[in-house]
Each structure stands twice: as structure tokens, then as C-alpha cells.
């Protein structure tokens, strides 16, 4: 009995976890607080000492209000249909929690919580959501199993009361009947069921067909979100992401040390300003298509000589990206499997060109390359000059000259080429100094910023009006100022991180570490990074918090990354790998079988020109086939039973087929009689059985006699029954079933 009394509490906990999971999936802390508090209070209100519940009329009013609210919500935000549906379920759950609860209501509550979990699963892939889901599953198994017992007890009690002539007043209360060790065996059985469920669910999860290249964030191939972008639009981005999702883990680079120099990973070089705040990668016709050759390194240089003083930087990619990141200057590339890539010697950036997901790669870098090294790395090409497709206003020139003067750098570049490279760097650093000096405000949230008019450039607006922006504004402004005084400068986007784990000697790269800075040409092939973002702000943004929980949070982040990498992004390749671990043959056979079925379906669909509807047709045909197979199996089974019951084993050929077709009615008759407690012994001939029936049950015996005559006619009459006789047999059979108060199976 204690077990049954536990059910409402377990069900309540399950529903609470369902609510929490939905709120976590939608990352709505406010909703979690409100709904969680209301749900928690409902236990005290309905199950507390006073045991009050919401009257039905009040529940109806609330229901109408909730439905109206959801309709308005859906009208305002039609893209978030599933979210609105989930919120409807959530409010319905809260209303029901405050009502009196019968087993039916408990079932509805559990059903609503399942729907909320499903909608959450569609929306989110967060580790926290998964953790809540696991807790929900643990509580849910117990709740559902207990619900069976609870509902059965209530139903039996109600049935007993209803069967009583006095409406249960005379009936003793129903005490559950149970044996010894109830609680222990219940727990053990639930444990076994849970373990079995995990095994079966894992198998289904592993073998279900997948596609290639799932994104660990969304689970879908498209729509990557990493913080990094290979283009910039200053009029579009209003808010820089502050997501702490891990994107990469880098090993092999020395820690920032006391100097606090960050790890600066170059991703894309934007050397074309199109005006209007838009930066792009300049199209290049000197790109080199390469393929790695594991386990060795594939050189990015022309291979004309050795580059010394290199270091290997190992990357573990947690979120797939189309770019291979590297510290300046990349020398060689290595991957675990042979992969295609594109190397742009002018910008010294590497683009990933394969379809399969890249999980690990190693880049050999030259931190201090000589000019000769750089010449090899650019494969003899001249670096492309940045293109500024705009005419900077005069006041930009004036501002640049003013800042150069303030920095003690001559405004006119020297004529000597060597001095010119030095001047470039000094001038760029002088131009960056006012940005560092606090004259400009660094802000990642610019949603309140008014967009410039179409004829105004966002850089000009930033420099002279708003003086507020994030790294892209700072970098763009510095590049524009450099350009105005003739310094070749280009924008670089990538990641900057200071989050170094000395234990593992790894750098953690997160979405929020995405950054943009400027590279200034300081030699024939050399570029130097100049970052206009205030260093203090850079450290504040990209340094991990130094609280006591930082290590735990780092561990949690890795866990989240592993979760996304191994579970959310579990694609066909990972599936093959896992299956191959069990049996190497499975690695090839299952995908091949799935692929061959899919190819066959595509081929059939193409040959009939059905289009997308062809798959629906194939589904219908497959269903019809399954039904046909079941029908054939039933027919064969019936034939076997006929052969056994009517001793037809010695017959063959057409005669046997005729018997199978025509004697079915007699076997149906025997079935009807057997179901009503009148089985025919196997040894008894049909005629003797009919006579015995006449003595025992005169009513149905007459019908049995007629059917027996028809049976003898068909069986030994040496001619088939005509249509009328067959119809007569069918009618008699139904009459017999009616007379006995049953039906023909």
C-alpha cells in the first residue's frame, strides 16, 4: 500500500522535471522560476493538510485565458509555433496540477510532460537539457510503472463499488494483494526495465540511419553558429555573442604567461572593403588546392627549403567550421585522414574543402619566420594589396594626421622602402593608441544604436559620432585610418583566447572568443597584427573568470563539448565507427544496405517520374505488401489447422486445395463450439459429435447437424459445394454463433 501512496509524489516530481526540461530547453529562466514556483506550490495546496483544489469553473476560465494567450503568442511569432505549443502544454499542466486528480488526470499530466520533453528535444541540444531529460526518464519510468498499479487499484475499487447494488456502501475497501518483498522486487524490476530500456534505446539510436556532417549545435548540417565569420557587415551585427560554448581546444602553444599575450588564431583575411560597412575576402586566383597525406605533414610552402624554429599546434575541433585556424604563419598541415584543403598564399589562410567532418588537425607554424621563409610560404606570389572601394572623407584624413602627430609619427611616409615598412608599423600603432586610450567605448551590445543613413558610412559614424562599438568597428576604423594615410592594412577575423589550462596545457576556444583585428604590411611578405581593441577590454572579454569554480566550469564546458561532439553530432560516419567497433563487417554492411535501399528507392522513384510523392506511394505499396504477407501467413496457418483438424494430410493436388477452400466453415463451427465449452474430441467423427450434441444441446444441435451434412457432402460427395450451399453454410454458422451468444472468429 505504501508503494501506491508513493505514486502521486513520484508523478508530481516527474511533471516538475518535465516543466524544468522545457524551460531549460528554451533557456527561459523567468518561465522556469514562475512555472516552477507555481508547480511546487500546487503540491502544498492540493495535497497539503487542507487539500484544496481549483474548482472546475475557475479551471475553465484559466483554460480559455491560456488558449487566447497562446493564440496571440502564435500570431505575434509564427516562427515559434512549437514553442507556443510547449508553453500551452506548460500552462495546461499548471492548471491541472491545481485540480483534483483522478488516475485519468495523472495520465494527462504525464502525457503533457512527455509532450514538453519532445518539444524541448526538437528545440535544444544543451547538455543541461539532456541531464534534466535523464532525470526525467529515471523518475518517469517509476511514475509510469507505479501509475499502472495505482490506476489498476482505483479501477478495481471503482468496479467493485459499481457492481455493488448499494453503490459500494456495502463493499469492504479493496486492499491490494501482494506477496513478500514487494518493495525490493519492485525496485529490482524497475531497475531491470530501466537497464533493458537503455540497451534497446542505445541499439535503436546506433542503428537508425543518419546523414553525414551533423552540426553539434543544431544537429543539422546547415546553420553553423560558432561566433566566427569570414565577412563583416557593420550594419547587420548588433550584438556580439557571449556564448561560452566550446568551439576548439588547442594544444602545443605556450601559455600566455605574465605578459598576457593571447593565442591569436587567424581564420579569414578580409582585404576588400566594399563600403557601407561591408568587408569581404578578396577573390584570389592563386589559391592552392592540396590534400593532406597522413600521418605526415603536407607543406604549405613551395618546398624550396627548410623552415626552422617551427612548432606544432594541435587542434581538437568541437564545432565543425569551414576554416582551418592557425597562428601566423602556417607552414604545414596534418590530419588523421587524408582531407582536401585550399591554401591561399597571399593571405596565408587555409580553407577546409572536404565534406566529412574534421575532428582533429595539426598545424605546423613558424612563430618568427624570416623573410625567406615567408617568401616560400607565399609560393613566390606578391601579397595582394587591400582594396578599399570607398573614398574616405577628408575628416578621416585629418583625424589620422592628427593622431599621427599626437603619436610623434610623421604623417608622410619615408621614401626608403625599408624605412617605409617600419613607418607602417609605427604609424599603425600610433593610430591604434587613441582607441586604447579610452576615447572610444567598447560595447558588445549595440542594439540601441541607430543605423547610419544609406549615404553615411558606419566607420565614419563610429569615428566621429557614436564612438562606441565592438571589435569589428575598432578594427574597421583602424584599417580605414591606415588606408587614409597609405598604410596597407587588412582585417583578420578569428579567435583570441587567454583561457589556458595549465594542467592539460591547452587553450580553450569558445564562441565568445571570436574577434577581429588588423594586420599591417611590414615587409615584402610580412604582415603584423595591430589590435585596436583596448587591451584591458580584450583581457576582460577573453580571460576566464578567476573564481573558485572556474576549473569546474571548464570541466563542465568540456563535458558539454563532448556531449555536443559525440551525441548531438552523431552522424553516419560516427555510426559506422561505433558499429565497426562491435564488428568490422558491420561498419560497411549496414550503411551499404541502407544506402542500397535508399538508392533503389531513388531509382524506382526516378523511373516512374513520381517526384516527392513517389516515396509516399512506395510507403503505401510497402504497407500493402506487409498486409499481404500477413494475410498469406494467416492463410497458411489456417490451412495447416484445417489439415490437422480435419485429417486432410493424405490428400494432395487439386482435391486438397478444394478441401482447403470449402471445409473452412466446418472448422469455424468447431471453433465457435469450442469457445462455448463444447469442444469436439479429435477422435470423434463429425456425425457422432453431431449426435452427441443433439442429446446435450438440442438448440444448436440442429444447426450443427445441418453443417455436418454439408461437411460430409463437401468432404465425401466427390463434387464441390455450389455457391448456394456455401452461402447456406455461412448463414448457418452465423446463426449458430448467435444462438450461442457469440460471434464467428
Amino acid at each position, binding site marked *: 500500500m505504501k508503494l501506491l501512496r508513493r505514486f502521486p509524489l513520484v508523478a508530481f516530481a516527474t511533471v516538475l522535471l518535465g516543466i524544468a526540461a522545457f524551460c531549460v530547453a528554451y533557456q527561459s529562466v523567468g518561465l522556469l522560476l514562475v512555472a516552477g514556483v507555481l508547480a511546487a506550490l500546487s503540491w502544498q495546496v492540493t495535497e497539503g493538510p487542507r487539500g484544496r483544489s481549483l474548482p472546475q469553473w475557475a479551471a475553465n476560465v484559466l483554460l480559455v485565458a491560456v488558449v487566447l494567450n497562446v493564440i496571440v503568442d502564435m500570431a505575434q511569432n509564427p516562427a515559434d509555433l512549437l514553442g507556443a505549443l510547449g508553453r500551452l502544454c506548460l500552462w495546461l499542466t499548471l492548471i491541472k496540477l491545481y485540480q483534483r486528480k483522478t488516475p485519468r488526470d495523472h495520465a494527462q499530466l504525464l502525457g503533457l510532460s512527455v509532450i514538453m520533453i519532445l518539444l524541448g528535444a526538437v528545440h535544444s541540444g544543451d547538455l543541461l537539457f539532456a541531464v534534466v531529460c535523464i532525470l526525467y526518464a529515471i523518475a518517469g519510468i517509476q511514475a509510469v510503472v507505479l*501509475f499502472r498499479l495505482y490506476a489498476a487499484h482505483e479501477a478495481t475499487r471503482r468496479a467493485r463499488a459499481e457492481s455493488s447494488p448499494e453503490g459500494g456502501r456495502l463493499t469492504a475497501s479493496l486492499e491490494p494483494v501482494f506477496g513478500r518483498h514487494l518493495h525490493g522486487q519492485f525496485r529490482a524490476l524497475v531497475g531491470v526495465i530501466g537497464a533493458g530500456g537503455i540497451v534497446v534505446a542505445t541499439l535503436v539510436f546506433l542503428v537508425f540511419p543518419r546523414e553525414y556532417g551533423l552540426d553539434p549545435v543544431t544537429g543539422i548540417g546547415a546553420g553553423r553558429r560558432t561566433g566566427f565569420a569570414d565577412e563583416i557587415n557593420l550594419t547587420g551585427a548588433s550584438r556580439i555573442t557571449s556564448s561560452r560554448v566550446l568551439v576548439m581546444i588547442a594544444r602545443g602553444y605556450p601559455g600566455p604567461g605574465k605578459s598576457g599575450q593571447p593565442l591569436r588564431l587567424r581564420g579569414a583575411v578580409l582585404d576588400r572593403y566594399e563600403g557601407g560597412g561591408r568587408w569581404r575576402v578578396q577573390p584570389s586566383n592563386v589559391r592552392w588546392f592540396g590534400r593532406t597525406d597522413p600521418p605526415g605533414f603536407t607543406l604549405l610552402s613551395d618546398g624550396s627549403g627548410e623552415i626552422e624554429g617551427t612548432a606544432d599546434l594541435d587542434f581538437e575541433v568541437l564545432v565543425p567550421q569551414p576554416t582551418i585556424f592557425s597562428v601566423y604563419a602556417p607552414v604545414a598541415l596534418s590530419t588523421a585522414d587524408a582531407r582536401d584543403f585550399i591554401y591561399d598564399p597571399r593571405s596565408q589562410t587555409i580553407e577546409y574543402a572536404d565534406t566529412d567532418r574534421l575532428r582533429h588537425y595539426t598545424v605546423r607554424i613558424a612563430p618568427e619566420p624570416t623573410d625567406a621563409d615567408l617568401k616560400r610560404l607565399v609560393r613566390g606570389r606578391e601579397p595582394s594589396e587591400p582594396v578599399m572601394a570607398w573614398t574616405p572623407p577628408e575628416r578621416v584624413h585629418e583625424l589620422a594626421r592628427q593622431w599621427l602627430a599626437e603619436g610623434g609619427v610623421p604623417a608622410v611616409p619615408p621614401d626608403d622602402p625599408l624605412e617605409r615598412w617600419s613607418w607602417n608599423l609605427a604609424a599603425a600603432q600610433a593610430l591604434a593608441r587613441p582607441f586604447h586610450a579610452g576615447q572610444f567605448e567598447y560595447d558588445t551590445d549595440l542594439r540601441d544604436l541607430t543605423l547610419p543613413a544609406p549615404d553615411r558610412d558606419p566607420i565614419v559614424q563610429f569615428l566621429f559620432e557614436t564612438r562606441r562599438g565592438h571589435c569589428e568597428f575598432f578594427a574597421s576604423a583602424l584599417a580605414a585610418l591606415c588606408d587614409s594615410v597609405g598604410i596597407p592594412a587588412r582585417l583578420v577575423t578569428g579567435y583570441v583566447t587567454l583561457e589556458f589550462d595549465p594542467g592539460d596545457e591547452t587553450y580553450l576556444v569558445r564562441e565568445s572568443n571570436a574577434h577581429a583585428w588588423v594586420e599591417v604590411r611590414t615587409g615584402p611578405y610580412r604582415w603584423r597584427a595591430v589590435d585596436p581593441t583596448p587591451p584591458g577590454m580584450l583581457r576582460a572579454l577573453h580571460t576566464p573568470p578567476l573564481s573558485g569554480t572556474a576549473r569546474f566550469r571548464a570541466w563542465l564546458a568540456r563535458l558539454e563539448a563532448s556531449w555536443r561532439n559525440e551525441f548531438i553530432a552523431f552522424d553516419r560516419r560516427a555510426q559506422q565507427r561505433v558499429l565497426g567497433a562491435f564488428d568490422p563487417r558491420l561498419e560497411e554492411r549496414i550503411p551499404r544496405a541502407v544506402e542500397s535501399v535508399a538508392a533503389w528507392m531513388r531509382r524506382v522513384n526516378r523511373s516512374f517520374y513520381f517526384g516527392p510523392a513517389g516515396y509516399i506511394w512506395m510507403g503505401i505499396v510497402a504497407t500493402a505488401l506487409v498486409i499481404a504477407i500477413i494475410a498469406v501467413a494467416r492463410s497458411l496457418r489456417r490451412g495447416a489447422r484445417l489439415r490437422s483438424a480435419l485429417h486432410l494430410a493424405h490428400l494432395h493436388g487439386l482435391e486438397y486445395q478444394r478441401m482447403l477452400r470449402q471445409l473452412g466453415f466446418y472448422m469455424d463451427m468447431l471453433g465457435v463450439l469450442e469457445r462455448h465449452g463444447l469442444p469436439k474430441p479429435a477422435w470423434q467423427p463429425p456425425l457422432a459429435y453431431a449426435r452427441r450434441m443433439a442429446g446435450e444441446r438440442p438448440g444448436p444441435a440442429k444447426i450443427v447437424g445441418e453443417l455436418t451434412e454439408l461437411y460430409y457432402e463437401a468432404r465425401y460427395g466427390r463434387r464441390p459445394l455450389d455457391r448456394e450451399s456455401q452461402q447456406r453454410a455461412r448463414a448457418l454458422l452465423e446463426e449458430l454463433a448467435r444462438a450461442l451468444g457469440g460471434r464467428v472468429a
Partner: protein
Amino acid sequence: MTVRYRYHLHVPGLVYVGLAMLVGLAAMNRQNNLLFAVLGVMVAGLLLSGIVSGVMLRRLRVTRLLSQHGVVGRPLVVRYLVTNRGRLLPAFDVHVEERPVEGPGAWGRLMDAAPAWVMHVGPGETVHGEAMFWPRRRGEARFGAIRVWTTFPFGLIRKSATFDQPQHTLICPRLYALQRRVLDAVGPHGLAGVKVSPRPPDPSGGDDYWGMRDYRPGDGMRQIAWKRSACMDTLVVLERTTPAPPRLRVILNLAGPRPERAGPDHGGDDADLEERAICLAASIIHEADHRGIEIGLTMLGAPLPPLPIRHSHWHREKLMAALAAIDLGAPRAAPRRPTGTERAGQIVVHPDRVQPELGRPDAWHFSARQIDSITDGPLGWAQPVEPVDPPAAEPAA
């Protein structure tokens, strides 16, 4: 015992399968691994639901323990021995119900039923489940197969096992609380023997010496002849004469309807009145047996020989069984006045108008129409007992 196992289509299961297919489609469409995981859990739930309930039922055996008779209006508790022959797996949520039986005497025609439910049977254990039946009509109730089913653990697949166990029981007529004055009134006029006592006579007997016999378990200490026992080296007891208990013959007139009726407001058709007459006769027998009166039964019009006057539990059961088994649809014989000079009181119960010629001149006659006035209502019902007038029996003489 024949056992048939079967899986049943179940609406919640079908809904669940539909939902699982939807989740599968959504997972395929979105390639969402969380949805794949949910689908895996749903498939696992479906498989486990079928396997666990199937394995559970395969090892269950159910035996019906049926009492020999029930009484209309009183709950008939049918017990089931549920045995789990498995060595590891316990059985949970076991429903036990009777399968419908066709033909005359089917239990469904005689009573309403509430199925039994057993929450748990451990491996190797046997528990008793009990189902409550409420008999509505008297007669022989036939039971056929017992069906055991469960939807444990998730309620998705219903599995059943049917055990053939034909049995039958008798449903006795409804008993009424006969007013004490009825038999008190009858006693002084015609019951032979000693004074009618509400208790059975003292088994130790009267005062006169009859003989000696060996001791039998149950004999009182005072009955033991200690000296004689010491001489014989074995326990012997004194037997004394026993006073003859009062004797009563109940005559039930079921000779068929009479042409003249008692009146327009007779309150029921012939069959109904005859049923009430049977109930009245049963109530008289019940009360008389309770008072220690030896009873006999004669049914006029029914092909049943007169049952002798006896007093024992089994004799009472025999009389009740005879009343329970009366088939009012069977052809009737002509009423014939009982002959013989039996030394016993006589009560004649008529369905309708009293026919004095069917009893001895000193017999008491009751009509089924009087049942409300000479009884305090049905036994076993929680109805308030209202004060009633003295019995309105109609002495023939």
C-alpha cells in the same frame, strides 16, 4: 487445464505506436539526435512492455476457489489462487476475471461481478485474489474460463492468459429476516417436541441415562465417566437421552397459477410471486434452522420428492439447494395434498391466494404477498429495520 495466451490490440498501445512513428519521422526529417534517442526510448518501452508482461503471464497459474453456494443479495466472494511459478521475475498488476459463459445457468445472467486484482506475486509465491460477485437471481451459476491479463509495466500492450476451469455454484434465494413472532405463533399450535428455543438444544442431552460409549473429541468433561474410564483404562462417556427437537415441514405450493387472483393490485406477475414464495420458504427454513427446529420441505407441483425432516448443516444446505434449483419454466404437476401422519408442524407457503386444502387443518398458511409484513426486510442489506405489526398469518382452522 488448457491455457491460451494472447496479445490484444490496445487503444493506448496504438496511440503510442502512432506517436512513436511521428517522433521517428520528425527525427528523420530533422536529423535530431535527441529525437532519435527519444525514439529509441519509445521503441524500448514498446518492446519491454510486450516482453515483460508476456514472460510474467507465462509463469502464472490461476485456480478458482468457489464456495458451494451464494445467496441473492449477499456478496459472493470468489477467491483465486494466483501462483507465480517463475524463479526470478515477480508478477505485478495481475487482473483476474471470469470469461462469459453461454447458455442457461451462465453466471453473467445471475450476478454482477467485479474482477479481482493482484498487485504483486513474488517468484515462487502464491497469493489469494478475490473477486466480488453480487447475485441477482437464484439458480445454478456456471463458471467457465478464467482470464488473467496485465498491461504491466507501461500499459502499452495487453497480454492475457485464459485458463479453462469449468465449475458451478448454487445461488440460493434471497433471505428475509423473518419476524420472531411468526415461528413463536406457529409453535404452540402444532410444532411437536419441546419448546421452541432460539438456540440449538444442548448437545449434552437430557437427564435420563442411556448408555456408555467411547470418548470422541468434542465431548464435554462432564460427560466423561471417570470411574469407569479408570477401570477400563480408556476414556468413556455417559450418553443420556436427548429430547426430541421441534419439527416443522414447510410446504411450498408451486402448483401453478390459479385462475382467480387476489386482486388487481397484486404487485407482480405469477413468476414474481412464485419467486417471492420461494424466498419466503427459504427464509422460514433459515430461521427455523437457526432456532434448532428440524425441518423438512415439500414442493407441490415440482418433480421433487418430499425432503425428510432433519436438522443439520448439510440438511439445511440440501433444502436450500433444492429451493435454488427450482426451474419455474419446467412443466408443473397437479397439486396434491401431502398424505401421512407426520408428527410435525406444518407451514404452507403460497405464491398468491391461500389454498387451505393443500395443508393439514392445523397448518399455517402464508402468502408471498405477506412477505413484507412478516419479515423485517432482506437479510444482508443495510436497511433500517422498521417496527412491524404482529404476524398476519392465516390459520386455516
